[in-house]
């Protein structure tokens, strides 16, 4: 430390005359760089018999930086067996020193162990198995409560169900309309370019109809709902968990499954098939607009062609898919919310995870459906 710098904090240990005198000078109020530290062996030159006294005459302004330094001095003095005489220190600094414990923490920050692939695989397997068990149990209790609700013996409040339905249904009509309309139009564009070459432009109606009814409308609606409603469910339940609201429900004897999960899942099960049908209709309108504008297909021709192309069984297939997606999104997002930690960051993590798992899961389930449909020949 450079003593010549005017105003900067400085300390000096003098051991002349059989005493240990620590002189403090300058302003101890640094707001940048590093604060002065007292080395652990700083009292090596000190005389063991004499107490450590201070000279604070040249001391300027100071804040907690000085107290930190004095704390270190006091520890070094204790380690060296030298008495610490703070009589000359500012009385308020002495007061603060009196509050401080004798030693600073010596514990190191928590350190993570080495990555062990075998242990990671093991814990991953155990977590997955636990998750399967928990989800199965959650599905079972929710189904049980759903059955009781149908029989009129459940304690689910209709107002919760209606609020959830409004959020999942009417409030998401706009985004479902936009996505499905544009998707129908895009399919019609892509198909038109190819089918024009064979003078088969009118088959655009078949392409749009079958693709949307069989696959796209259900999947796209499910992806929208996973992002919109699934994320919201997970965030809401995770926040309730952090506020001890879930604990309050449990203690009050209100099962989480019938109060929170059942209305959420039921709302999606009721709205998603309807949204799917609506999405099919809107996408056909989108396809029709492109076909009429680009391919000189008449409106009546498009409608007739569509009616002939899409059999009723395809609708049933899509309808069942929409219900399965609804159950999956509802349960998985509630489960992820219930599993979240209790901090603010954990709410964000839960919402993100609910969306990611929802979207990936929906597509995975859809491919499973494709395999089944192929096997039974729909």
């Amino acid at each position, binding site marked *: 430390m450079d003593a010549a710098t005017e105003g900067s904090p400085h300390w000096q240990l003098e051991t002349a005359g059989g005493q240990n005198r620590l002189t403090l000078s300058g302003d101890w109020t*640094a*707001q*940048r*760089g*590093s*604060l002065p*530290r007292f080395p652990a062996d700083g009292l090596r030159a000190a005389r063991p018999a004499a107490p450590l006294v201070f000279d604070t005459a040249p001391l300027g302004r100071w*804040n*907690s*930086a000085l*107290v*930190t330094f004095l*704390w*270190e001095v006091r520890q070094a003095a204790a380690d060296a067996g030298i008495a610490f005489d703070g009589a000359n220190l500012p*009385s*308020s*600094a002495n*007061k*603060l020193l*009196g*509050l*401080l*414990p004798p030693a*600073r*923490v010596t*514990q190191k*920050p*928590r350190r993570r162990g080495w990555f062990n692939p075998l242990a990671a695989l093991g814990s991953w397997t155990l977590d997955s198995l636990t998750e399967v068990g928990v989800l199965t149990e959650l599905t079972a209790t929710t189904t049980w409560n759903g059955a009781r609700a149908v029989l009129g013996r459940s304690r689910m409040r209709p107002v919760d169900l209606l609020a959830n339905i409004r959020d999942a249904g009417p409030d998401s009509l706009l985004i479902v309309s936009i996505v499905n309309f544009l998707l129908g139009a895009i399919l019609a564009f892509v198909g038109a370019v190819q089918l024009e070459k064979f003078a088969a432009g009118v088959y655009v109606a078949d392409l749009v109809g079958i693709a949307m009814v069989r696959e796209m409308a259900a999947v796209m609606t499910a992806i929208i709902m996973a992002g919109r409603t699934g994320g919201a469910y997970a965030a809401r339940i995770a926040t309730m968990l*952090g506020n001890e609201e879930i604990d309050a429900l449990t203690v009050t004897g209100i099962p989480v499954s019938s109060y929170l999960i059942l209305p959420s899942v039921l709302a999606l099960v009721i709205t998603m098939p309807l949204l799917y049908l609506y999405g099919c209709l809107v996408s056909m309108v989108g396809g029709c607009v492109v076909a009429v504008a680009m391919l000189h297909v008449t409106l009546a021709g498009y409608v007739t062609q569509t009616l002939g192309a899409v059999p009723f069984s395809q609708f049933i297939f899509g309808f069942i898919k929409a219900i399965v997606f609804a159950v999956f999104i509802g349960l998985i997002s509630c489960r992820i919310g219930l599993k979240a*930690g*209790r*901090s*603010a*960051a*954990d709410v964000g993590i839960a919402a993100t995870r609910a969306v990611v798992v929802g979207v990936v899961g929906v597509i995975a389930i859809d491919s499973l459906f494709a395999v089944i449909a192929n096997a039974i020949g729909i």
Partner: protein
Amino acid sequence: MAVEAPASHSAPLLRLDGVTLAYGPKVIQKNISMDVRRGSVFAVMGGSGCGKSTVLRSMIGLLRPAAGHYRLEGVDYWAANDARRTMMAQRFGVLFQSSALWSSMTVGENVALPMQMNTRLDATSIRAQVELKLGLVGMLQAIDQYPSELSGGMKKRAGLARALALDPDILFFDEPSAGLDPITSARLDELILNLRDGLGATIIIVSHELPSLFTIADDGIYLDNVTRTPIAHGSPRYLRDHCDDPQVRAFMQRLPSNTA
């Protein structure tokens, strides 16, 4: 900005001048005038729901008064520009009612963050300061723990360490002893007084915990629940023994009152 009188040491540190606080059309407290002397422990008292915490919110700059002036060393807080206001707010240390620790950080990181964002100290110096602040409140052992792992009293002390992070000279406490047992609460009072002496800070405390108010406060204001305006000024002990208003005296003596 109006021309202000130069700050002097005899002038009050904080002054509220005819301040009215409201959320939209709902008036919380009106016509509050009070002076907080440098180095005092000032109590904002009153029954539940009288607007004590709202007064504190306005003094730490979270709620703009609907009318009146709030001056810090003669400078009108709300007439100052943003940069000036931020500088004034850096002199405030606040212990919130629910401690308001950042839940995704450890206690040590909670205390370090204000220093990392507001000073240019290096990491070792900040670490040393964090240890000091936690040592002052007796929480050194919890430096690597998360707020969710702490008890209510520990959260308060960790919140207090965070409030001290920037060496503030004005400390605000919102119900510091709420939810604490009498012994923990008494220890916290003692700690507050020691910190006041050690840091030379001025303390404004919002509370209805009478034992702790009698111990630590040497000045104060009593806010009325019904008329929505302050009805008494003075230290809690003075109000208990000598206040003219029977309602205030009853409150301070813990007697049931028909208006309380």
